[in-house]
């Protein structure tokens, strides 16, 4: 079994008030030197079977049509190795 991660972020030009709220809180918490924060979404898809090009293409399509709204959001797809459960 493999895991595919889809990260969805607001397009750079779109205002992200949640990210800004986080950033404004940072100095208060003693974290200096962070000039910008943007908040996104992470989807972890557990895929049955091999993650080959066909599977990735399908996931790409899923991300483009459903997980992200490409009018306002960008996304990336990456495969993540899952450590075997050691039981």
């Amino acid at each position, binding site marked *: 079994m493999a895991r595919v991660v889809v990260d969805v972020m607001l397009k750079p030009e779109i*205002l992200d*008030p949640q990210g800004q709220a986080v950033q404004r809180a940072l100095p208060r918490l003693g974290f200096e030197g962070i000039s910008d924060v943007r908040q996104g979404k992470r989807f972890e898809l557990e895929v049955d079977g091999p993650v080959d090009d066909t599977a990735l293409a399908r996931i790409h399509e899923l991300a483009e049509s*459903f997980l992200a*709204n490409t*009018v*306002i959001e960008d996304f990336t797809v990456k495969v993540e190795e899952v450590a075997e459960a050691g039981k």
Partner: protein
Amino acid sequence: MTARIGVVTFPGSLDDRDSRRAIRLAGAEPVALWHKDKDLKQVDAVVLPGGFSYGDYLRAGAISRFSPVMGTVIEQAKSGMPVLGICNGFQILTEAHLLPGGMLGNDHLHFICRDQKLKVENAETAWTADYESGQEIHIPLKNMDGRYVADERTLDMLEAEGRVVFRYVVGGDTSHGHGHVNPDGYGNPNGSLRDIAGITNEAGNVVGLMPHPEHAVEPLVGSGRTDGLPFFTSILKKLVNA
């Protein structure tokens, strides 16, 4: 004869009954539609009501947009059937790409509920013919994800083609910010670009807006005004005279 206007109930729709009531008060026949049915029961027009369909999980409107009923609504809207999307319905219409742009969380990060002042920019659409262009009205607004965004080119196109239907009226005394009793309902309540509250498609049959006209149809309840009724009388006249 009267017109049959469908109101879709999605899981999590909240203002479906209110929309049916508004349609009835305007003199048309409301028809309840169910998200799992492709069949639109021969209605002449469709309202996508407000609410939190699917809990607004993923993105507001993102899951509903793929429901069976929306397949038919999208198809028929493209061939001219009037469709009105209110709040969550507006969000569904942008997710379905029947209207351009998208909806994001309010810039102040809070839910906001108030009687909002709007300017009618386009009184030519199927849903706004009973208003006059330039008219100022009050329509209740209540949302978490009401910030309309689109790229500059799209915004310019909407302006150039007269497709901005409603704008939040900015001006008056807004110094108290969003959380104040603001008897006049002035101000952009959510950070929508160019103060856009509602837009239409090229053909003028599909209209989406964040404020809730169905909550302003009776003098006794809701906002106590009836500024929202012309939405429903506009469409009735259009359908009956068609």
